[in-house]
């Protein structure tokens, strides 16, 4: 057994809370944070920030990023990570590592893309969000380059999946984020042509399994969930339906044929799965039985932003309207029109407040603890925001088109 394998075994033996890693409570290790919930329970975030006022308000630091991208920042320990792509052909793919306190760059590593890098002009090859198990960070780019570094920037392994699957690409770009559990990394490479999902050993990047997927583009991120029979399954969403695969073997466990969103991702909430299908659909999965629809509500339609579940309620952004519904029944409880034209970033939550981010850089902080949502704060950075921010170390970490921002209380 090599060193990486030994470490993985030790971590599993320790029964770490996060799937297969040592993610600390204050880390934000993947798209939408711990377990993909979008929620940080114990955080003291500011409700007001601005880069357009003088002096700026509650901006601890900002750094200019050396490239483009709409992947989300990760925070692991005392470091914040973000991927970028640069160059005329966007074929320099990098991982940037900054110190959380100072914003000083600790290290960066770059790769040459081994697959196509064409994307829609609004995004870039650095679109999929990396994932960390607390010891290593795993990267995926739209070119299907996959890499693993340790937290000090030592390269552990590489794959160039477009060389192996030459038609697994999308001329608009690929953006599904990575998920990891139990030493298995899952990359969803769904597109109109050679569509697949592939599971790789986190120890060395070799293939565990791969499955063909429907040949239709999808940018949503998978969910890994612990089923009631104590088996982990990875659920993949496509406009042609939802399929759960056994995480270890890639065997199909169940299917649900309602067409899903190509952009918004599903959310696991206890024994429910909330699917961006027919508006929003709550599905209960019982081992050995067909998935059962608990409710669906076509007024809870999601666009790009992924829904968020917290304390018995589900929040979705439909167009420019924030909607809150009861998790058990799907009944719409209240709605609130947001400022801003488009919302690509998914909302995040901390301290009973929901944080929304429009593409034009305006943010709203909404207190959701009362009978209706109430705007209690605003943020303005003056730059395009497509990426879902992170919450860690009592700070918001926002990736805009040009900068990485640490938003924290200064008073």
């Amino acid at each position, binding site marked *: 057994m*090599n060193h*990486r394998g030994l470490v993985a075994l030790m971590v599993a033996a320790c029964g770490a809370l996060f799937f297969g890693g040592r993610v600390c409570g204050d880390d934000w290790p993947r798209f939408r944070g711990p377990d993909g919930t979008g929620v940080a329970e114990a955080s003291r975030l500011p409700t007001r920030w601005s880069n357009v006022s003088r002096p700026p308000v509650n901006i601890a630091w900002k750094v200019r990023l050396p490239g483009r991208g709409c992947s989300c920042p990760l925070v692991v320990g005392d470091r914040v990570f973000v991927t970028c792509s640069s*160059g*005329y052909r966007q074929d320099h793919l990098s991982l940037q590592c900054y110190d959380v306190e100072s914003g000083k760059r600790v*290290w*960066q*590593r*770059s*790769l*040459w893309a*081994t697959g*196509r890098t*064409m994307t*829609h002009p609004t995004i870039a090859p650095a679109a999929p969000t990396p994932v960390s198990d607390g010891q290593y960070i795993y990267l995926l780019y739209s070119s299907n*380059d996959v*890499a693993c570094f340790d937290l000090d*920037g*030592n*390269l*552990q*392994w*590489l*794959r*160039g999946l477009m*060389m*192996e699957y*030459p*038609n697994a690409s*999308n*001329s*608009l770009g690929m953006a599904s984020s990575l998920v990891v559990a139990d030493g298995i990394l899952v990359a969803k490479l769904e*597109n*109109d*042509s050679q569509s697949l999902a592939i599971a*790789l*050993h986190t120890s*060395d*990047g*070799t*293939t565990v399994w791969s499955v063909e997927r429907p*040949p239709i*583009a999808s940018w949503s991120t998978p969910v890994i969930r612990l089923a009631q029979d104590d088996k982990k399954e990875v659920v993949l969403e496509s406009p042609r339906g939802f399929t759960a695969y056994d995480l270890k073997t890639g065997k199909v466990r169940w299917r649900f044929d309602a067409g899903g969103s190509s952009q918004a991702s599903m959310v696991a909430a206890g024994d429910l799965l909330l699917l961006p299908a027919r508006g929003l659909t709550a599905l209960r999965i019982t081992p050995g039985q067909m998935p059962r629809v608990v409710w669906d509500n076509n007024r809870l339609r999601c666009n790009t932003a992924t829904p968020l579940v917290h304390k018995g309620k589900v929040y979705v952004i439909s167009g420019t309207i924030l909607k809150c519904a009861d998790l058990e029944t799907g009944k719409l409880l209240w709605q609130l029109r947001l400022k801003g034209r488009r919302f690509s970033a998914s909302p995040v939550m901390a301290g009973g407040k929901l944080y929304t981010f429009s593409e034009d850089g305006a943010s709203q902080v909404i207190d959701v603890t009362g009978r209706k949502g109430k705007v209690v704060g605003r943020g303005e950075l003056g730059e395009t925001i497509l990426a879902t921010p992170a919450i860690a170390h009592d700070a918001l970490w926002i990736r805009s088109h040009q900068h990485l921002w640490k938003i924290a209380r200064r008073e």
Partner: protein
Amino acid sequence: MIYRSAGCFVLLLSCLVAIPAASGSENLAQSLEVLRHVALDGKDNAAAARAWKVVAAADAERLPEILSAIDGATPLGANWLRTAAEAIAERELREKRALPRKALQAFVLDTDHHPRARFLAYRWLVRSIPEMKEELLPKLAQDPSVELRREAVARLIAEASKIDAKTRPSDAITAYRRALEASRDEDQVRKIAGALKKLGQKVDLPRHFGFLTDWKLIAPFDNSGRRGFDTVYPPERELNEKATYKGKTGIVRWQAFHTDHPFGLVDFNRPYGKLKEVVGYAWADFYSPRKQQVELRLGCKNAWKLWLNGEFIFGRDEYHRGMQMDQYRYRVTLRPGVNRILLKVCQNEQQEDWTVQWEFQLRVCDETGTAILSERRSSP
């Protein structure tokens, strides 16, 4: 042959296991060999990770040797080597220690080395010694590295733009012409061509890029249910410009088509109308004076298949996700004399206004993007 034999690689791995007994130089050389040959399936990763640590710990003086290892490395091997070299350079720059300037400068200027590795060396040099930019760029306008050339062209454009075109129009034209002759990237060429146009100069963009402008087209064949992509229609079996076939709506035959689009766009909608669920074929003869390696570069937002001299090159079953110049690149070998390029272009059933396009652009060039022209090419 990109990858060496498995037996050779096993030998290299054996060498790596023996690294503790070897000297520093031997360690590095063995580790570089391991990294250079990393293959696709991930099975080399464990050995590569061990070798990477040896390389990344090397002294900065070894950077040229490490960059040289990128010559002929596999694509993944090149990335292993790049990250290790970057780790060294980053460490040295952070510690405010000097990089081996002379050796790196020589590396940048040595066109026998991999263009991408040379660009890395250039960036480190310029980052640590900014004045190196002015020293190096005048030598790089015709460089085989597209990235070094791009930097040099940017400098030429900046120089040309400083010339007062009103008082010194011929000097401005000469300067822009020099920049144009060196430039290969679309954005720079557009900028230069725009400046020359203001000076009353015409630029033959299709010729500059090597777009094929004279085609024979035949359409429409059926693509109902998108099944036409995999249906073998007669032009895939024979190229006979006199032949007629049963098409989707009647008898179809080859017709000549010349495009005068500045970027070589061939629009099937022009001769056939805005059809849906159809397949068209485009055929061009390219006359090569000798056997030579070239790149076929295609831009297309429809599903397509490409053949050269009857040999299938690649196909892509994707519709209306976007198109750009040089979207797809394929290295092929032309034979002396006539070479037959056949492209199948499929239109689907979508009705949105952004799905009207049924078109492509194709050019022949070398790996720097320098046009390679057919011996029989019509004038614009």
